């Protein structure tokens, strides 16, 4: 890279040469015409020279250049032809030709270098920097050219200025006209374009530059390019220069600059054309131009146009509407007065608000426009639509979000939960109870003992008194007797009225019917009233009696334990009116009774008459019969004796049949009166007798302790020692307990505590346990079950209820306390015993809680069906009936039960009935959740239920045992036969019937059934549980062999234990699937293993990968049985002992056989497959053979539960292989002797190993004792023949043969928890208990 100064020098030289060339060019312009004809010739010669240059250079990259060149020349030819053919101004063509000639004529050497440069340009990527640079150079040159042009122009002017001008014009015209249709021009044009366009499109520039390379412009074009095109747009140039400056800098920094600098731009090459004559003398280095920024950068001051000048310029171009108000006359057509619609009473919408200045500006502008007037309305204002903006926002404000948000939409802020808790919520289960939002308030207010062991006699009486009084009060409150009396009077009056009104007229049928009804009603009511009155009377009497007893007792014992006092207030009544009323009452009753008696009598009489008639008829018949008989008797005396007997026999019962009816007694009026009076005196207050009103007060004094005898003192002390508390149990779990309170002398305990129970589980029961505390020991007195309140029961509307309790514990004291469950008598002689049990009442109140915002913390009703059944709170039954909308039934019921329409209690029903009867209440008799569902159904429910295929699929999904492993469900309905369900249905049917035949007694059968149920339940649970996986079930940490070789280490390479398990995920714990790097630690540990000695001869069994039995199929599992060796196999007895064997020929073989002690082999059979080992020799054989037995699970079900239930056993039999000679065949006697032998296998013993054991243990490795029969014919223990040493003696202790086995399952299966064992255990226990 040359120094910048050198570059500058070169540039200067170039400039100079350029100027000179230009001068020359102008001069040569004169003799253009002369030169033109030879241009084509010269070009052809040029081509040849070019080719020579190429061949001489031998540049490998020249091929591209060649192509380019060839193309270019072809084009040029075409162009020249075009030029010649098309009739253009001769001047232009000549000029072009001359220019070309000039450039091409300048010498072939220059040409080659030039080409080199162009090729370089085409070769090198046209980077942005180079382009900018090119442009820059171009401009610099252009400036020089401008100067030159002025010179040239002056020269031309001197000669023929007229022609020149026309030519220039022509050139310009040409550029505009021929741009599209002539290639040369487009190229020339594009070559003139780049500088102004460069800023906008570099790509274009590139193309154009390429074009330029292809088609070298003429001098004239170049001249035009430099002189003409840039004048109108000076500004873009500036910007490009600025850019180029910048990019130049970056290029310098980048270090790629030299190459880029060397790239000659097309413009440059054009220039070179002009300066070629000068360049000829210089060396090739000239073209490697290295330039500095200073050469290209020109600092210019920013262009500034003064404000005023700008304003002036703008005024010419821009119209600024004024903000002055436009007079109306201008806006409207002439001679039209503004018309205001509003004033005419028409509705005009409110215009949108626009500031007046803006409106004025708009109006002014519109007026300037064509048809400006059409924008104005009749009122001279701009036409506007009414204001579209609504006054209030459509979307309600969200300020008080929490206040009245739909409860369904309310959100709860939840703390991030641990995964354990998250699991509990299912996605769609809105099980609110589980969220602990509900609260039960249990208010335990107090406890009253109705009887307590520590009651003294007086207490017993007092409590009885109190109870009676309570009863009295409650009766008084209801006042049934009074109510019934009123009713009775009312009924009597109506009846009387009716009779009076209709007395003269004959009673109609309906009337009579009504009267009968009334009289029945009266009778019933009277009976009821009498009962009530009697009860009242009795209560009062017993109250007084108890009080008398109490008084007597107090007097007797000379102290008082209870504060009760009974006052009897007398209410004097007016004797006369009372008597009158009494009498009239009795009279009316008597009347009624008489009437009733009359009716009764009449009916009885009618009955009597009827019966009498019957009787008489019978009698007559009888008489006639007798007469007949007598006649008969007269005729045939002898025969009739027997007959008579018969007749008398047959008539015997007839005579007894209809007895002679007694005539009914006519009721005596006096008797009735007497009866009524007696009754009245018994149950009613006597006329004139004062009305007694009892009042119980606790105003009495309890005697001081010193006044009491010893026994009483002891009792009182005992009472003082005792205290009572209550435990609250929710769902049978203790949740809280009250403070213990001392028992007071009145045996009332006040707690007044409220317990707020935050509920998680659905409430089933609330229990209060009453405990009595004596010293440190507690005694459960009683349990009180409190019903779970209805969810509408809140503290505000809950009332305190009393729940009675009692306990049957027997308590006796040696002091005054009466005890419990002890006979007690108040009479002196000990009769009239009563047994009192500890009892009392707990007053408490259970309601659902409310939170701070008074939101009830109660569950919605539907969630607690149990509660709805169990504890129904104070619910208005009628409103419930009403809500059900079944008014018809109510009215029916009201008719039947003859509701009293005047009774205020029935008011609501009456109201309802009235509404129901008057207004048309057309409530549908059903409620549908999903409307229009039925109308759009494809099929009915029954059809869906009948589908066998669906049933099969659903049952399989439910994992019903019969279908759990049903592999192929047919796709068509008809392919599913009913047979499939037979077993299942049979089982379902049998579930209900208990078969007693199979068992000894029915109880056993029941137990067996129960066990079966439990077993099913357990299996079902197990199945459910098998869908829940723990992390360890799903992720296996693969073991990776480490340095130790045989030793294995845990490595955190986790993967899923079983893909199948993962597919069945229901609700897994969130599992993280990322591994943890614990490798370093393991590596450290493994270093120690390196030091351990290696034992290649001691093979160890490796731990294998475990597989869950889920994605397995038949043939995947094999049972590996490795038969290693056996000990002490019985040996054959010596053959000599065998009798009946022929000596001689067999002798030799016999001897051989006798040499062989035993030849045992092992045969393993499992699931009908039999495999056997090779035969070994001797009583201690060693096989060391591995047998693979295929395993098939029942029904192809390879789940854990199924595998556990496989009941197959592996049988390992040891046989002795005996080869017997069966003699020579007779057939082949002539041909020679053929020896026939028979292989016999003699069973020696067996080992049985159940598959379930192998599965549970996953492998079995050890020596087993072979089960051999006690006597094995033909075999004996080897030991007997061998010498007996001490060791042998030891061994003889454990008799029998042994075999060493190793059994395992391939692949290794995961043994599951054995539920079957649990169930089995349960069975055993259950059986034991019976």
């Amino acid at each position: 890279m040359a120094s910048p100064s050198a570059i500058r020098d070169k540039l200067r030289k170039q400039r100079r040469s350029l100027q000179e060339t230009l001068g020359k060019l102008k001069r040569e312009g004169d003799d253009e015409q002369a030169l033109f004809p030879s241009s084509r010739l010269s070009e052809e010669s040029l081509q040849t020279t070019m080719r020579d240059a190429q061949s001489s250079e031998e540049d490998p990259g020249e091929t591209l250049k060649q192509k380019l060149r060839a193309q270019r020349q072809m084009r040029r030819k075409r162009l020249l032809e075009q030029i010649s053919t098309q009739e253009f101004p001769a001047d232009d063509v000549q000029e072009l030709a001359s220019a070309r000639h000039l450039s091409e004529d300048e010498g072939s050497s220059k040409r080659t270098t030039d080409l080199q440069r162009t090729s370089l340009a085409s070769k090198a990527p046209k980077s942005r920097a180079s382009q900018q640079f090119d442009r820059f150079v171009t401009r610099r040159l252009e400036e020089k050219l401008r100067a030159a042009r002025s010179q040239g122009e002056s020269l031309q002017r001197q000669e023929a200025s007229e022609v020149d001008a026309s030519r220039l014009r022509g050139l310009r015209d040409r550029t505009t006209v021929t741009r599209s249709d002539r290639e040369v021009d487009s190229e020339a044009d594009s070559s003139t374009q780049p500088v102004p366009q460069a800023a906008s499109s570099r790509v274009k520039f590139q193309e154009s530059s390429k074009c330029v390379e292809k088609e070298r412009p003429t001098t004239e074009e170049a001249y035009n390019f430099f002189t003409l095109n840039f004048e109108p747009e000076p500004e873009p140039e500036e910007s490009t220069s600025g850019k180029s400056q910048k990019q130049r800098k970056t290029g310098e920094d980048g270090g790629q600059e030299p190459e880029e600098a060397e790239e000659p731009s097309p413009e440059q090459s054009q220039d070179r054309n002009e300066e070629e004559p000068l360049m000829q003398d210089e060396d090739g280095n000239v073209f490697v131009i290295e330039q500095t920024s200073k050469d290209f950068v020109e600092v210019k001051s920013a262009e500034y146009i003064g404000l005023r000048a700008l304003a002036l310029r703008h005024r010419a171009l821009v119209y600024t509407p004024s903000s002055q108000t436009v007079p109306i006359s201008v806006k409207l057509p002439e001679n039209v007065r503004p018309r205001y619609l509003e004033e005419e009473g028409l509705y005009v919408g409110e215009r949108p608000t626009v500031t007046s200045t803006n409106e004025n500006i708009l109006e002014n502008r519109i007026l300037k426009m064509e048809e400006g007037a059409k924008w104005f309305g009749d009122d001279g204002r701009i036409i506007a639509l009414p204001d579209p903006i609504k006054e209030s926002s459509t979307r309600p404000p969200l300020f008080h979000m929490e206040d009245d948000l739909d409860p369904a939409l309310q959100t709860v802020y939840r703390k991030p939960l641990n995964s354990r808790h998250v699991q509990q919520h299912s996605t769609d289960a809105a099980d609110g109870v589980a969220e602990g939002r509900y609260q039960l308030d249990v208010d335990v207010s107090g406890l009253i003992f109705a009887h307590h062991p520590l009651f003294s006699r007086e207490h017993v009486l007092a409590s009885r008194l109190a109870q009676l009084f309570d009863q009295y009060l409650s009766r008084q409150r209801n006042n049934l007797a009074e109510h019934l009396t009123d009713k009775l009077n009312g009924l009597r009056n109506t009846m009387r009225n009716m009779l009076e009104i209709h007395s003269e007229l004959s009673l109609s049928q309906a009337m009579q019917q009504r009267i009968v009804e009334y009289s029945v009603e009266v009778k019933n009511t009277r009976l009821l009233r009498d009962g009530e009155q009697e009860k009242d009377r009795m209560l009062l009497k017993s109250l007084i009696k108890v009080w008398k007893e109490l008084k007597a007792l107090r007097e007797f014992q000379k102290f008082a334990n209870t504060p009760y006092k009974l006052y009897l207030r007398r209410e004097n009544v007016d004797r006369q009116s009372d008597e009158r009323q009494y009498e009239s009452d009795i009279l009316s009753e008597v009347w009624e009774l008489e009437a009733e008696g009359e009716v009764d009598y009449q009916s009885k009489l009618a009955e009597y008459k009827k019966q009498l008639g019957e009787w008489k008829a019978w009698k007559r018949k009888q008489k006639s019969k007798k007469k007949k008989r007598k006649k008969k008797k007269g005729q045939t005396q002898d025969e009739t004796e027997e007959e008579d007997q018969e007749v008398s026999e047959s008539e015997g019962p007839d005579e007894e049949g209809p007895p002679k009816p007694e005539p009914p007694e006519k009721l005596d009026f006096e008797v009735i009166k007497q009866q009524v009076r007696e009754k009245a005196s018994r149950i009613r207050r006597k006329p004139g007798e004062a009305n007694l009103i009892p009042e119980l007060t606790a105003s009495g004094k309890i005697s001081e302790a010193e006044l009491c005898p010893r026994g009483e003192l002891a009792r009182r002390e005992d009472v003082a020692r005792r205290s009572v508390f209550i435990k609250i149990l929710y769902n049978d779990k203790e949740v809280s307990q009250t403070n213990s309170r001392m028992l007071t002398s009145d045996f009332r305990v006040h707690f007044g505590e409220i317990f707020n129970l935050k509920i998680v589980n659905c409430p089933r029961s609330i229990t209060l346990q009453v405990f009595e505390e004596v010293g440190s020991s507690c005694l459960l007195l009683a349990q009180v079950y409190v019903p779970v309140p209805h969810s509408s029961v809140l503290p505000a509307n809950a009332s305190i209820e009393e729940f009675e309790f009692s306990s049957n514990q027997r308590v006796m004291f040696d002091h005054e306390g009466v005890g419990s469950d002890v006979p007690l008598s108040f009479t002196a002689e000990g009769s009239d015993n009563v047994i009192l049990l500890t009892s009392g009442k707990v007053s408490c109140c259970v309601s659902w809680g409310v939170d701070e915002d008074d939101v009830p913390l109660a569950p919605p009703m539907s969630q607690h069906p149990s509660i709805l059944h169990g504890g129904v709170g104070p619910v208005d039954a009628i409103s419930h009936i009403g809500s059900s909308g079944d008014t018809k039934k109510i009215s029916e019921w009201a008719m039947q039960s003859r509701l009293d329409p005047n009774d205020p209690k029935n008011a609501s029903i009456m109201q309802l009935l009235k509404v129901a009867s008057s207004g048309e209440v057309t409530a549908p008799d059903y409620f549908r959740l999903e409307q229009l569902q039925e109308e759009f159904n494809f099929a009915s429910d029954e059809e869906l239920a009948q589908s066998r295929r669906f049933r099969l699929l659903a049952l399989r999904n439910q994992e019903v045992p019969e279908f759990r492993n049903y592999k192929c469900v047919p796709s068509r309905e008809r392919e599913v036969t009913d047979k499939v369900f037979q077993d299942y249905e049979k089982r379902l049917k049998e579930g209900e019937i208990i078969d007693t035949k199979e068992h000894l007694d029915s109880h056993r059968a029941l137990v067996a059934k129960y066990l079966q149920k439990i077993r099913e339940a357990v299996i079902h649970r197990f199945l459910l549980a098998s869908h829940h996986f723990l992390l360890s079930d799903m992720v296996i940490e693969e073991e990776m062999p480490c340095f130790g070789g045989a030793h294995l280490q845990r490595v955190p390479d986790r993967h899923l234990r079983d893909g199948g398990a993962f597919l069945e995920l229901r609700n897994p714990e969130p599992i993280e699937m990322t591994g943890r790097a614990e490798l370093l630690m393991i590596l450290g540990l493994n270093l120690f293993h390196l030091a351990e000695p290696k034992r290649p001869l001691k093979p160890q069994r490796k731990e294998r990968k475990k597989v869950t039995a889920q994605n397995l199929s038949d043939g995947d599992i094999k049972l590996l049985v490795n038969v290693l060796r056996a000990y002490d196999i019985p040996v054959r007895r010596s053959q000599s002992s065998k009798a009946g064997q022929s000596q001689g020929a067999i002798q030799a073989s016999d001897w051989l056989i006798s040499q062989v002690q035993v030849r045992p082999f092992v045969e393993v059979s499992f699931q009908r497959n039999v495999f056997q080992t090779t035969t070994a020799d001797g009583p201690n054989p060693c096989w060391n053979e591995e047998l693979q037995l295929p395993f098939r699970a029942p029904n192809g079900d390879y789940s854990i539960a199924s595998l556990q239930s496989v009941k197959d056993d592996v049988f390992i039999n040891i046989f002795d292989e005996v080869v017997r000679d069966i003699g020579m065949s007779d057939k082949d006697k002539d041909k020679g002797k053929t020896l026939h032998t028979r292989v016999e296998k003699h069973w020696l013993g067996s080992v049985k190993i159940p598959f379930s054991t192998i599965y549970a243990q996953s492998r079995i490795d050890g020596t087993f004792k072979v089960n051999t029969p006690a006597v094995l014919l033909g075999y004996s223990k080897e030991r007997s023949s061998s010498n007996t040493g001490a060791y042998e003696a030891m061994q003889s202790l454990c008799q029998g043969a042994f075999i060493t086995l190793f059994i395992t399952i391939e692949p290794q299966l995961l043994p599951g928890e054995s539920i079957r064992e649990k169930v089995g255990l349960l069975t055993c226990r259950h059986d034991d208990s019976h």
Partner: protein
Amino acid sequence: MAELHIIGQLVGATGFPHNSLFCKWGLNAGGAWRLLSGSKQGQTQVDNPQTGDTAYWSHPIDVHYATKGLQGWPKLHLQVWHQDSFGRCQLLGYGYCHVPSSPGHHRISCATWRPLGSWREQLSQMFVGGGPQLRSPDIIYSGADRYRLHTEAMGTVQLELAVILRNFDKYGVDS
């Protein structure tokens, strides 16, 4: 009786502010629908992507329904949860989409949202985690008047569902 098989997977989720995501899903169908086989709800594992923000679950969905009507076409509702470094889980988004009613393979992206609490709740959410959750999650798929609910957009859950219809044409439902 028409049948509907839904076979597919919960592919994954993108655009959530946290990683370590898991998803609880459930299918909700009307009264006319009967589940023949397959589980209609489940939960994926927690996926913590190493690169990118897409959590991939590839959780299988395989459900077989029989129906006697078109009403209550099955809807799939999702809850995306995040398990933080302490092992605590918090809700990130609710989403719901209908199971496509045309047979074939469908790629569904289900946009999710989560309720926005008061500013206090948002603050505590930022520092201690947790967040507002719907009291009754069934409004994810039921159209209660939700306009009062302030929610915040969360990421999207990608699903691939293949739908197989059977016998619908027998009842005049062109598929």
